[in-house]
C-alpha cells in the first residue's frame, strides 16, 4: 500500500518563474492538504482540496493555487516565484475533510528559488 507520494523531490527555479508540484494521496484517501515548511519551522497550512474543490485556505497569496483531479491526486502551483518561496512543500492526505481526520504526509518537494 503506497503512502503519500510527491514529485519531484527537489526543484530549482529562478525568481519570477512558475512551478507545479504534484501529489498522489494514500490509497483510500480523498482529501489533500498542502503545507509549506521553511527551514527550522513547523509546516504552515496552504490549502485543502476535497471533491475537487478548495475547501479551506491558509494565509497565502493568490500566487499559490491548486487543483484536485477525479482520482484525488493534486497539484500545487506557485506563480511569480520569490526567494522567500524556498521551502519544503508537503502534501498530506486524509479520508474525508472532517475535523478529526488523521493526516498522512509525503516526504515533500524541496523547492529552491534562486
Amino acid at each position, binding site marked *: 500500500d503506497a503512502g503519500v507520494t510527491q514529485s519531484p523531490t527537489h526543484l530549482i527555479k529562478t525568481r519570477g518563474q512558475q512551478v507545479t508540484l504534484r501529489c498522489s494521496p494514500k490509497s483510500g484517501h480523498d482529501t489533500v492538504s498542502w503545507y509549506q515548511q521553511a527551514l*527550522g519551522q*513547523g509546516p504552515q497550512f496552504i490549502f485543502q482540496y476535497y471533491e475537487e474543490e478548495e475547501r479551506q485556505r491558509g494565509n497565502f497569496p493568490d500566487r499559490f493555487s491548486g487543483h484536485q483531479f477525479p482520482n484525488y491526486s493534486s497539484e500545487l502551483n506557485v506563480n511569480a516565484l520569490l526567494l522567500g518561496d524556498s521551502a519544503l512543500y508537503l502534501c498530506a492526505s486524509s479520508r474525508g475533510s472532517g475535523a478529526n481526520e488523521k493526516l498522512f504526509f509525503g516526504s515533500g518537494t524541496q523547492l529552491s528559488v534562486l
Partner: protein
Amino acid sequence: GESVGLHLPTLSVQEGDNSIINCAYSNSASDYFIWYKQESGKGPQFIIDIRSNMDKRQGQRVTVLLNKTVKHLSLQIAATQPGDSAVYFCAEKASTLTFGKGTMLLVSP
C-alpha cells in the same frame, strides 16, 4: 493570532531514559491534537493523537497528556532509543491543522 508553541527547542537524553516534550497551545477552540515526528529529509510521521474530551492517551512507548485548563500538551516517550532522535511537532486542529515550531530530540547511546 492563535498559535502553538514549544517550551524547549532541543532536548538531549541518554538511551533508556524517558523523554518529555512539552507544547503550549492558545486556541481554545481546538478540539483535536496530534504529535508528529519528523526525521531529516522526510515528512512528518503521525505518532499519536488525542481529542479534547480526553486527558490522556497511550500508545506503544508513547503517552500524550492534555491539560485543557492551562492549554498544555505533552508527549512522553518511554525508554528512549537512538531511533527516536528527530524533530517532534505538536499540532492543534480547530478548522485547520496548525503546527508548532518543533523540538529536536537528541538521544545519545
